[in-house]
């Protein structure tokens, strides 16, 4: 697999966060305040724009429960945010870093299991479980990255090794006694903020919102930071990056660790929400697939891609069910079909749509 090209823009809100040039100003123009070229001010302003857009999204979503009286709608958004979290985690490595993992369940499962084992075996409070689970994800990310990238794995080889790693973890979790083996683990029902379990849907909603926003913010940081620039450089051209003094292996390992950290948070959230985990549920391939589907559909390597992708997929699923609800299998097949059609006609994900439109517009003007 080749490194993906970064999509520098996404539709709607996203374009304001990414790279749309200020309207009415050519690239020659200098911004009045700083005397710098517009492109510079624009790029420098990326962080602020991200903060603003994410802040706006955060505020809207934080206020949403006031409008969303229906529990179902609340759950729908909660699960879409949970999906966003997984997607944003994967996007750090897969989107910004160009390394496709098919085994992000490793980190997810580790986060969930570490948190569960601490709570069940050691009676540790859930918050500490969260921290420990997330730390485990970071450590696993660093280890897996170090092993894979030290050996120079890339493309499909990296994808396959992560896939196999997840299987190994699943089998081990299935076999050793302290994970409860195939029986799985169940945490005690104990609602309260201290236990990270909530009586009402809103509690989980806000937990998911905070985690998703943090993950998106990390994505935004990566997009606009030195580290992210190095990561994107390695993705786009590893040799050129090395020639400019970037330690490609270290950058990729760090990205894997960061990605693993966020993914593990997703695992802990799953545990706190559903209280029961078993090896197939948390180390199974469907977790990995859920993590990669959103960003690819939404726009790889963009800040808002995971969010757009997660919500779009959730909607597509609803539409499919709405159309063919009588036959669940058929509606699922329709979902798959829509996925294929989307890939065929939106090759760069929904995020690529904006770029395409602008390109067409520019061409139109030229003609």
């Amino acid at each position, binding site marked *: 697999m080749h490194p*993906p*090209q*970064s*999509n*520098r823009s996404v539709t709607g809100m996203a374009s304001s966060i990414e*790279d749309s*040039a200020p309207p009415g100003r050519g*690239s*020659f123009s200098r911004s009045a305040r700083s005397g*710098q*070229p*517009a*492109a*510079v001010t*624009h*790029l*420098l302003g990326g962080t602020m724009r991200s903060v603003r857009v994410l802040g706006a999204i955060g505020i809207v979503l934080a206020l949403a429960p006031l409008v969303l009286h229906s529990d179902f709608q609340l759950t729908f958004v909660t699960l879409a945010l949970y999906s966003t979290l997984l997607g944003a985690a994967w996007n750090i490595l897969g989107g910004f870093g160009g390394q496709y993992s098919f085994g992000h369940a490793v980190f997810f499962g580790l986060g969930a299991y570490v948190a569960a084992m601490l709570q069940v075996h050691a009676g540790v409070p859930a918050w500490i479980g969260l921290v420990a689970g997330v730390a485990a994800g970071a450590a696993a990310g660093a280890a897996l990255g170090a092993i894979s990238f030290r050996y120079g794995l890339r493309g499909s080889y990296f994808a396959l090794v992560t896939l196999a790693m997840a299987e190994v973890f699943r089998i081990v979790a299935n076999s050793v006694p302290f994970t409860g083996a195939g029986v799985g683990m169940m945490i005690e029902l104990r609602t309260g903020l201290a236990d990270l379990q909530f009586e009402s849907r809103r509690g989980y909603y806000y937990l998911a919102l905070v985690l998703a926003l943090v993950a998106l913010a990390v994505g935004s940081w990566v997009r*606009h*930071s*030195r580290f992210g*620039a*190095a990561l*994107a*450089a390695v993705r*786009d*051209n590893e*040799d*050129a*990056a*090395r*020639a*400019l*003094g*970037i*330690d*490609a292996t270290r950058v990729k390992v760090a990205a894997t660790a960061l990605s693993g950290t966020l993914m593990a948070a997703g695992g802990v959230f799953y545990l706190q929400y559903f209280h029961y985990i078993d090896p197939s549920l948390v180390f199974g391939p469907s977790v990995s697939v859920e993590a990669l589907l959103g960003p690819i559909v939404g726009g790889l390597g963009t800040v808002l891609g995971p969010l757009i992708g997660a919500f779009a997929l959730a909607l597509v699923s609803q539409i499919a069910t709405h159309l063919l609800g009588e036959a669940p299998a058929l509606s699922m097949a329709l979902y798959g079909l829509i996925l294929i059609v989307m890939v065929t006609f939106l090759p760069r994900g929904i995020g690529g749509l904006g770029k395409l439109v602008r390109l067409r517009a520019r061409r139109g003007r030229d003609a």
Partner: protein
Amino acid sequence: MLELTRLSKRFGGLAAVDSVSLVLEEGRIGALIGPNGAGKTTCFALISGFIRPDEGRVVFAGRDITGWPAHQVSREGLVRTFQIVQPFTGQSVLENIAVGAQRKRSRAAAIAFAAEVAARVGLGDQLDKPAESLPIAGRKRLELARALAAEPRLLLLDEVLAGLNPAEVAEVLPLIESIRAAGTTVLMIEHVMQAVMSLADDVWVLAHGSLIATGTPESVTRDPAVIEAYLGHGAAARLAGAT
């Protein structure tokens, strides 16, 4: 600034670079020339840490950097460009250059500095263009700008003029001269002899992996061995006869 001692690299029995030794003094522009396939680019890869030499030493600014990984060589201040330009596709011109600039700077400072460098190489009005949309000349400039943004002490330029038309070449020549004037030592691989003639202080001619001539541009271009290496056996005599 740069000293190569009996540098050698073989690929499957074939000597790509065969015992090359040279010394480039600080503040000079050196040129490595020779026909296609002579081993020039391999030589660059050996110097810049992309390939480990089989034998020989690379000493840069008094420090033995033989076998160092590429990113560390670059951090020492020895930065190369690529013959086949390697832009970070999908990123804008400004972003591309900023990657070079960010080694010693914050992201914001790197971006600001990148804009300055872009202006120096004549890309000041293309900052927000996607790198892959640049024509060849633009890409070459970008390649140069990115390396310059890393503020090298020694810059290795691999055919930075190839594919440019004479007007474009004429624009880039002063640029390279100004790089040297700003204190950067330059070693270039170049086919465009016009550039070598007007820029280089020292010229090394490589053919089939070995050095066949060393000297000033004037001396090497008159060297029959060099002409033969370039234009083929007997070319020197024929050209002389024709003109």
